[in-house]
Structure formats: C-alpha cells, structure tokens
C-alpha cells in the first residue's frame, strides 16, 4: 500500500527512487516547467548510466549528459528558442557526435503513442503513418506490419514505453500525493505519469489535505510515489502563472557549455557547489515573476 505521507526531501527522493541505470522520463517542454531542481540533485548525487527518455527538454538533457550521468538518450527534439535565437544543445551534440552516449532517434508522435501504450498496458501500438523516412532503418524496434484487418494496409508499430521514473515539477501537492498542475494542457502529463513506474514530483507548495477539489487534481495520489517541496523547482525554466524563464542564466549556460572546460566550471559553480535549489536560486537571483496572465496579456 502507498504511504499516507509521501513528502520527503529532494535528496531522499533521488536516493530512494533513482538508482544508477534507471530509465528516466523528463517532463516539461522546451523552456517551460522542466524539473531542473531534480536534475541538479541527480547530478549532485552522481547518478550514473541513466537512460533518458525525453520530451523536448534540451537544457535538462544537456546538463545530465555533460555531467556524465547518462549512457542513452531517446528523444525527438533537443533545442529551444530564446530571445538570443535558437539554442542547440552543445554537450549533448558533442557526446552524440563522438559516440560517448547512445542516441535513440525518434519522432514526436511515436514517443507520445509509445507512452500511451505503456500507460494502458498495451504491449505495442500502431501509428497511422510515418512511412517514407529513414527512421525505420535505424529503429529496428519500430516495425512495419500488415494490418490484421486489411492486409493491404501497412501500419507502423512501436513498442510500449514504461520508463522507471518520471521527473515532474508541478504547482501544488497535498501530502497524499495529489498533484495540481496549473496549466491549460495537462492531459499528456497524466499519460506520462500513467506510463512511468515511479512518479516523483517536486512542487512549489504543499497544500492542506483535502483542499484540492477533484477538478484541480491533474495526477491522482495513487499514481504518485514521492513529493518534495522545492520552490522555484523549474528555474531557470518558466512555470506558468509563477515565474518566467531566467534568461540571463540560460544565456550564461549556453555560453559556458560551448566547451567541456566551460561546462565543468559551470557545473562546479552552479550545481555542485550549491547545496540545494534554494542555494542555486540565491546564487543566480530570482527569475522574473510571472507578469502575463490570461486576462491581462496586453
């Protein structure tokens, strides 16, 4: 049975639930709501040989790869726009180009559907199309098979994804583990939580038990294994309604990550020498607070 109180420190969460060689799914998208505090704690805890499955979360993947925590990255897009232009993921690129990590190329909908299959206990799932690209020549686990219903139709199948661990940063949780994500499009996040075997969530705030009405529960407690209270847990990425992207810090990171030496210096200064996220945020300064809301968006 699940414990009634799932709140613990982020350090305990990582030590208890992220053993070496775990396959981790990173939630968030581009520069929105990445589980950055958890990523930094994984780096501090010196986790090794992690296999990452990622939404387009370039910044998190780049730092984990640069810190030597990763052996495999399964992804469909890594990179993001900033006001300085397109940011390509330089530690990831170097590792991919020199072969120090295994790269599993995929596509958006293939990963989405593989997670859906994982969530619903289906061993594999057919996709409506996708043929014509070179993906099938490098992903031998993606197959072309005749439809069992009309053998003239060929469908692509992808195997279900059941990552070991989901890392997610959210707005609120109660101690049982009910999660509220204050975003207009949380449905895919629920699918990832259903697909992953352990669901680890850092949150901005812990709310009173029973204070989240059912329509504000994005992920129900019985899917959640551990909660850690980490204000600014997505910084330097943004969190809807709370804070903006910490653009200066990201620009500084992009600059540092151009070289291994630069990255190592960054790692020491902003991750290893910080005790926790609070320390990190103190060092880089608070991100700009959320100024645009749905109603006052100019």
């Amino acid at each position, binding site marked *: 049975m699940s414990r009634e109180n799932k709140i613990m420190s982020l350090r305990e969460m990582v030590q208890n639930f992220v053993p070496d060689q775990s396959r981790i799914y990173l939630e968030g998208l581009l520069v929105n709501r990445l589980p950055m505090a958890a990523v930094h704690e994984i780096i501090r805890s010196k986790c090794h040989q992690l296999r990452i499955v990622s939404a387009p979360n370039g910044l998190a993947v780049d730092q984990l790869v640069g810190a030597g925590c990763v052996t495999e990255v399964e992804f469909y897009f890594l990179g993001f726009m900033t006001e300085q232009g397109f940011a390509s993921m330089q530690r990831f690129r170097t590792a991919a180009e020199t072969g120090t990590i295994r790269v599993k190329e995929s596509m958006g909908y293939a990963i989405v559907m593989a997670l859906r299959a994982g969530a619903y206990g289906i061993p594999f799932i057919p996709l409506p199309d996708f043929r014509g690209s070179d993906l099938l020549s490098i992903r031998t686990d993606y197959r072309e098979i005749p439809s069992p219903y009309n053998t003239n139709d060929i469908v692509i199948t992808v195997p279900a994804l059941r990552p070991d661990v989901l890392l997610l940063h959210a707005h609120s949780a109660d101690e049982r583990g009910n999660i509220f994500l204050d975003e207009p499009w949380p449905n895919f996040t629920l699918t990832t939580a259903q697909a992953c075997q352990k669901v680890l969530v850092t949150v901005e705030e812990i709310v009173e038990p029973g204070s989240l009405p059912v329509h504000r529960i994005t992920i129900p407690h019985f899917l959640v294994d551990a909660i850690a209270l980490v204000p600014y847990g997505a910084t330097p990425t943004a969190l809807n309604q709370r804070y903006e992207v910490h653009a200066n810090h990201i620009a500084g990171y992009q600059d540092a990550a151009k070289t291994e030496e630069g990255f190592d210096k960054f790692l020491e200064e902003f991750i290893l020498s910080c005790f926790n996220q609070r320390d990190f945020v103190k060092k880089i300064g608070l991100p700009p607070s959320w100024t645009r809301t749905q109603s006052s*968006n100019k």
Partner: protein
Amino acid sequence: MEEYTSTEMMAVCGANAVRDGERVFAGTGLPVLGAMLAKVTHAPNAIIIYEGGNVDTQNKDLALSVADSRLGYRAAASIGLIETLGFLMMGGRVDVGFLGAAQIDEYGNINTSYIGDFDSPKVRLPGSGGGNDIASSAGRIILMFTHDARKFVKKLDYLTSPGHLSGPGSREKLGLIGGGPALVVTDKCQMDFDPNTKKIRLKSVHPGVTVDWVNENVMFDLIIPGKVPTTPEPTKEYLDKLHQLDPQGIYLGKGQK
C-alpha cells in the same frame, strides 16, 4: 518603395502562402510570424495550431516556443500534444504545415536529424520533433529556411521527414495522407514543385537576386521555367503589421538589411 530585410521578405512570403480559413500548424520562428501576419491581414479566419496544445490562438505577445503559455490567451482549445499531433495532424485535420530543413533534396524530402554518418555524425541536429508527423499528414507543406547551397543536396544524409519521396505516386503508395511540400521560401527565392515530376522548380526570385545565382546555389538540377518572375515586394501594410507582431525583433532580427 518600402525598405525591408530578407528576413521580413521570408515572413511575408510565408504569410502569403496561408489562405483564409485554413488550419495552420506552425513552429516557432519565422513560420509562426508568417501565420500570425496572414491572420492580421488577408486570412483573419485562419486557425493557428501549436504542437504544444493550443488551438486557434489569439496571443498578442510573441510566443518563444510551441509550449509557451502566452499561447493560452483566448485560445479556442488547449488540448495537449496527443490531440494536436494525433487527433488534428494524424487525423488529417490540418491544411498547412510549416517546416524548416538543414538539408533538402530535389523531391522536397528533408533532413533535420544529422549530417554525416548516423554512427559518427559530423553534426548532430535537433531532430524530427513533430516534423515527420507534419510532413506526413498536413494537407500541404511550406518549407522556410535561409538559402545555402549546401542545404540543397542531391542525396540527403538522412531522411527525417518525407517530401515527395522518389516522385509521383510514392507518397500515395506508402499511404501518407498529406499532400507533401508545396512551397519552399528562402531569403533569395521561392520554389514550388513541378506537378508532373514532383521535383523542385524555381517559382520566383526575390528582388536583386538573379536566376543564375539561385541555379548556382543548389546542388541538384533545378527546374527553371522559361520566365521566372520577381517576387512582389512586401507592402507597407504587411511590413508595419509584421513589426507590430515582433516589436523587439526577436525573429525578424534587429533590422540588418
């Protein structure tokens, strides 16, 4: 005559390719500026869809990513990735999709994955994202990228997203529901696709660019019709609206000609 940059020209060409009432799937950068420009000019009923989940967005502030919550402002729906890529895109409910490319071949097949060998790539690129999904299933594709001869290759290092594959009938044979690439917009010219061969054909050259220059800056045999028109210059109305959409020059640049 208005002054304009080649980046502004690209955004306006992108806008002109969108028709009123169409459902448009746009990625961040120039494509989304083009789609937004179309919506504030000749295509007020265009519906802009972002992979991140928002549909029929009315955002006033420019979005920095397809998951930017600026896009929630007065959107008609916020339905998430499964629905945008699945229900809308794969379900054949999108009229036009915008894509970029690091390499393109003469059939409009594109590479956004890597340059060199897969096992030891010279350049690891960002990857497909929703690119393959869009290229497979959108009604038609508009490709936008800056012109560089090294991008127009005879053979791709990797085919990320299908164009017209190996010519007429090849998309249909694989059951791809989308119509494939219809237009290529660069900072030098526009290209479309010859209906008989499905190969890239020069459509117009931007003012100040010669047909010879374009021909020398592609690495395959480009179809060049007898008469190649000059792309019409952007109007003041379109340029003004463009700057209202991107007042800080995030995508348009800071005004370099």
